[in-house]
């Protein structure tokens, strides 16, 4: 199953290219990589969604805005939730892989925490056939753009060589 996921060229299309719920906020995805890289920027807001079901893992969603409990971070959390919900819905429709997101966790700390989160996920997934996806985009608030990164790490419990 994992090989078939890696084989598909439409992975970049699983996440919606644009989401708009209100006039004020819009999420746009601009580029996609079939790999992940360490996040090094300071002062980012991180919302982490566990992924459960036939795929297990996590989605880390970063925003270059750190004001705690602001309308921007709250709305970004909901937009990230919607983007990932559509990602998993499309995964089910195109690959018949059923997975869900669980309630999110938040962090308003700086780069040190993100490095820990990142390395923790990398270590947790060692030995598994993993999907590692990274999307870059922007979160527009009244037309002002904030950079965003969405990283998705997941596996289907199959060890490397036994998928």
């Amino acid at each position, binding site marked *: 199953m994992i090989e078939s996921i890696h084989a598909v060229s439409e992975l970049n299309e699983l996440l919606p290219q644009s*989401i708009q719920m209100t006039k004020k906020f819009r999420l746009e995805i601009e580029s996609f990589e079939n790999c992940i890289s360490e996040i090094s920027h300071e002062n980012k807001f991180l919302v982490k969604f566990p992924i459960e079901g036939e795929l297990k893992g996590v989605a880390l969603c970063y925003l270059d805005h750190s004001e705690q409990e602001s309308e921007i971070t709250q709305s970004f*959390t909901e937009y990230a939730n919607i983007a990932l919900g559509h990602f998993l819905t499309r995964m089910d429709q195109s690959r018949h892989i059923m997975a869900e997101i669980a309630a999110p966790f938040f962090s308003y700390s700086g780069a040190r925490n993100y490095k820990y989160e990142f390395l923790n996920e990398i270590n947790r997934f060692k030995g598994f056939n993993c999907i590692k996806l990274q999307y870059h985009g922007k979160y527009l608030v009244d037309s002002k753009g904030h950079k965003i990164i969405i990283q998705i790490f997941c596996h289907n419990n199959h060890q490397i060589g036994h998928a």
Partner: protein
Amino acid sequence: MDGKRILIVDDSDFSRKTIVDYLEGSGLKIAAEASNANEAIRICSEKSIDLAIVDVVMPEISGIELTETLSKMSSKLGIIVISSLGQENIVMRAISAGAHDFLQKPFTKELLLESINKVLTSGELVE
């Protein structure tokens, strides 16, 4: 639909606010908001609610488990389940749990009002 009392259950403040904005001027009354299932159960046991809008992904108790509990508490309560997840499996679980309709996020104001109208006037709710 005038005067019908609505409960919004979603752990996202932004999502609840968006729904409140959508319902403004519709004649519906926002009776209460809850950010988790336990709060929603308490509100439904204390207040008269006509319709609950329930999000699926919430901490501790999911919206689908909450729907099952609420529909057992009152057969007169209409329930619309909302979620960013739109898999058939989740829609079916929500309906089996007692939901009268399911909307995938993001939805428009028009779609939400249409769903509320459908649920409140369908005759499925036992008086």
